[in-house]
């Protein structure tokens, strides 16, 4: 019986089915763990710093919303998480995670906004794989390039100085600086587009 074609197909089929089932189960178990770790280890410390002393009435990590950004050119689903901080039932601060392709891969940036006066509260690099000593300086919070975003007014948009804007690049790391700024610009656009509708609920 073990040499019959149908038997081979059945055995292989059952093994593959059980394998798929097991993997779906493990995937379902590990996804929330990964998500929770990123929120606690990467996002929370930055948000605590950006929103320090604001006495927000809600826990903006608890109340996070997932924004569907459609699909990218390759058909991958794109999502981002929006964190809103409220006071008197009204959203006053927001933070958003965006990314852009840098020199060595994607640069992921968390940008925090103050909504009333349309100011950037701060930016933080969540992950990057840029050149050591040059582009990788975006990871350093004390870097003047990172510091310059703090308090920047975004009502008229954010742009590199070479494009007539207000952002100065890290010298020698133009590609990384442009990518970082592109991620911040993307965050600005998303906040402008999504926050009013989000604040309503």
């Amino acid at each position, binding site marked *: 019986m*073990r*040499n019959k074609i149908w*038997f*081979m197909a059945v*055995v*292989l089929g059952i*093994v*593959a089915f059980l*394998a798929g089932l*097991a*993997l779906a189960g*493990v*995937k379902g178990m*590990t996804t929330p*763990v*990964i998500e929770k*770790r990123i929120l606690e280890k990467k996002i929370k410390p930055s948000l605590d710093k950006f929103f320090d002393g604001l006495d927000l009435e809600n826990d903006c990590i608890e109340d996070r919303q997932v924004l569907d950004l459609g699909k990218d050119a390759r058909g991958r689903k794109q999502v981002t998480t929006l964190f809103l901080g409220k006071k008197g039932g009204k959203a006053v601060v927001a933070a958003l995670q965006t990314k852009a392709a840098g020199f060595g891969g994607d640069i992921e940036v968390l940008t925090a906004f103050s909504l009333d006066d349309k100011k950037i509260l701060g930016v933080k690099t969540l992950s990057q794989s840029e050149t050591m000593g040059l582009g990788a300086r975006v990871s350093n919070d004390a870097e003047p390039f990172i510091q310059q975003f703090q308090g920047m007014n975004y009502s008229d948009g954010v742009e590199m100085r070479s494009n007539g804007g207000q952002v100065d690049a890290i010298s020698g790391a133009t590609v990384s600086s442009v990518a970082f700024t592109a991620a911040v610009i993307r965050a600005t656009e998303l906040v402008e587009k999504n926050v009013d509708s989000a604040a309503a609920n």
Partner: protein
Amino acid sequence: MKTLTQEFTKGLWEQIPPFRLVLGLCPTLAVTKSLEGGWGMGLATTFVLVCSNLFISALRNVIPPKVRIATFIVIIATFVVITELVMKAYTPMLSETLGVFIPLIVVNCIILGRAEAFASKNGIGRSLLDGFGIGFGFTLALAVLGALRELLGTGKLTMFAQANLDLTIIPLGEGREFLFKFMVDPPGAFVCLGAMLLLMNLISERSARSKAA
């Protein structure tokens, strides 16, 4: 027929991979830049080896001989993906250090080799012991190689980066670079593995000679 103890201990010297069983060289060379990479890869491989040995041995009378390799690969790949997902969730830094070599455990010839040569012919108990023995031997070899390369190449030992368990064995002045960086570069991997194998050959040669005398 080996006793059960021998089934386990053969993996630790007599057939220790990658020295005696010259298999699984890619991970051996690639991830042993640090002690952590060595034991991490060793344990991940052990887990996959033990689980696949268990399942293949349990199913050995059901699996049709003609599609056995395909079935083995599905079983092994399943455990590799489980390892991949679990490591990403619980040991993210180690998972990043090992990178592409975690999915590549699936083509580690040690695992398919043990499935074909041992687990598909032996009972569950023996297959488990074989898996643990060979797995621990591999882990031991990788950890020693990793420790040696890291110590000579950087003067440090990374136990577990996620928990900040790093030891600086040979302290350096501020801003000074270690001179023997060769050891952590790709060429050092080949030479260091070659030197360890040479040492093992010399030891067995000597013990064989003293036995003969």
